[in-house]
């Protein structure tokens, strides 16, 4: 019998610090807000926890720019962070699925290798996987497909021997401005914790690997005009004055060239659908002006993270053929909770029967 697998998105599963639930994102976000506002919060051990402590815990280290593996999963001495359970809160329609959990902060190539190991090691007897993946999870699946092709003489149909269906839910195949927002503003959690989260996010490869790469994703203000730049947000020129880690940008460009340009090219023979909401205003470009980078207003249909028209317009033929956009006027869940939307849940369920 086919086996259904859920690959969650960023912050879609818990993180464990030395095997204990770290409380990310709910409790740690609250602690971060309190620490940002008051200077201190109550830590998991009952002791005071400062914003600096949270930065130390949540930051990663990649001493070798060429390696996909982190040298430290946390800067807290003697500790390590790993993935924990999937958050049912945002995946409550897939509770019967097998789950692949990963450190969503890490290099997507490393996560893709872990996923491939899972697909091979836990392969259903004589059957294939059916995968539902959300957000970054879709990029991890794309990486896994290319790694598996490499293992099989670069056979673009090899992955189809392992996987029969993939339902991509709100996957930012060409990136998202929201990743840049985290790197610029760090306001994903709370204003009081923004600066701390910005410091944390700049140590996460995955956020850099999700920077936008579509034409016009960076626009340069010249006088009163905004001119689309011919470089994308993975280019250092997109980050004047932002002190972005150039090694992280280089890592992101290498990842895109190796695995994420033409993300479906090694899924030949796999049945695919790409579900994209167009019900919510979504930002679609960065603005470089006066030696600084800012984010545009959200004015394109999308799911608040993936701009639908831009992503569709950037996609190549085999990607466009399987894109299924839906919704308008706020009639779907937003990106983070798209998987609990009744239409999405039913569409995935029906697609798996095709």
């Amino acid at each position, binding site marked *: 019998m086919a086996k259904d697998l859920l690959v969650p998105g960023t912050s879609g599963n818990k993180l464990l610090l030395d095997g204990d639930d770290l409380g990310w994102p709910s409790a740690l976000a609250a602690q971060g807000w309190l620490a940002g506002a008051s200077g201190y919060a109550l830590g998991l051990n009952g002791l005071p926890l400062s914003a600096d402590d949270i930065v130390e815990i949540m930051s990663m280290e990649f001493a070798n720019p060429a390696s996909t593996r982190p040298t430290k999963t946390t800067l807290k001495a003697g500790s390590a962070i790993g993935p924990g359970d999937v958050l049912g809160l945002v995946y409550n329609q897939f509770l019967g699925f097998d789950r692949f959990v990963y450190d969503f902060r890490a290099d997507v190539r490393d996560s893709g290798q872990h996923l491939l190991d899972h697909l091979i090691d836990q392969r259903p007897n004589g059957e294939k996987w059916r995968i539902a993946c959300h957000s970054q999870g879709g990029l991890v699946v794309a990486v896994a497909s290319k790694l598996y092709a490499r293992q099989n003489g670069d056979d673009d149909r090899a992955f189809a021997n392992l996987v029969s269906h993939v339902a991509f839910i709100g996957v930012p195949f*060409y990136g998202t401005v929201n990743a840049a927002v985290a790197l610029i503003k760090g306001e994903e959690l709370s204003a009081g914790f923004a600066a701390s989260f910005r410091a944390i996010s700049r140590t996460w490869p995955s956020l850099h690997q999700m920077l936008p790469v579509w034409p016009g994703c960076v626009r340069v203000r010249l006088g009163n005009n905004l001119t689309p730049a011919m470089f994308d947000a993975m280019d250092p020129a997109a980050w004047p004055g932002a002190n972005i880690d150039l090694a992280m940008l280089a890592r992101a460009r290498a990842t895109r060239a190796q695995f994420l340009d*033409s993300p479906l*090219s090694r899924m030949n*023979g796999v049945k695919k659908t790409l579900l994209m909401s167009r019900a919510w205003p979504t930002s679609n470009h960065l603005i470089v002006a006066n030696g600084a980078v800012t984010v545009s207003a959200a004015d394109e249909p999308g799911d608040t993270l993936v701009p639908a028209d831009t992503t569709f317009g950037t996609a*190549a033929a085999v990607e466009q*053929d399987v*894109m*299924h*956009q839906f919704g308008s006027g706020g009639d779907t*869940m937003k990106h983070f909770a798209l998987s609990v939307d009744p239409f999405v849940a039913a569409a995935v369920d029906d697609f798996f029967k095709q």
Partner: protein
Amino acid sequence: MTSSSNSRAFVARAIVVAALAAIAVAPRAAAAADGPGQPRACKYDPRNVSACAPYACSPDVPEGTPVNMIPAGTPGFCGKCTNDRFCGGAMCRPDGRCSTYDASPAPAPVWPRFHLLVTNAAFNFADSTSAKPIVGVGYMFQGALSKTEPQKFGQRGWYTPDLPRVYFNLGGSVAAAGPAQNLFAEAGLTLYVPSAPIAITTLTLGAEFQRQGASIWKLGNADENSDRLGPSLSVGFLQNVFLRASYVFPLRGPNDHGALIVGVAYMKDLLGDLIPDRFQRFLPEPLK
């Protein structure tokens, strides 16, 4: 990188921008050359790769140009592919031909539906007895009153514009612990409103039935069980938490008193998601 070096990089990039823009829009003499022995000229388009199939139209751009930034319509030449994107996103094979890519099935009409295992915590007010929590386990189901119809989206892709807003709602829960067992059942119509404020996603108007007694599984037993029924209003948050208020009137049984039932049904493992493991020991015993 410092801001000044970023500025220099930007100026250099601007020059490249201008050069690439000229390449993209200006018909080039080389592209027009299409004589015997010459490569066939083409217009690059990753959305339509039929012009050079099974080979590819490779755009004539400087090496190192990010492939996603090359505009459709850029002049190029038919020949061996060098990148998957030049094959429309299919694999560029080692022999320079584009792989033939299998089509996926077209999306079928969808009947949107939602189901959830829940913990149900209810309190009775204005009842014959003092208010006390009734904690049980249950199941809820929402089904749309219509199906969706996917349409073709331009030349490629699909679009489902009209998603159902109105659902029917069925739910039930049982609290079998203790001497007074309770069964709740509810039915109603649900408006799906994910754009509502404060994370509200559903509004449900319906009816709630309560059976309370020592033998709730005995359907005809009116001596040990009391049945009550009345209207209910429910508000759902993020498809995970559902607050419900009902006023139930006595139907039969020893209890001839009405009651206001206020309850919250939430995804079975929600507290495990929201509260770190080591803090869960502070939860009230019934919620554990």
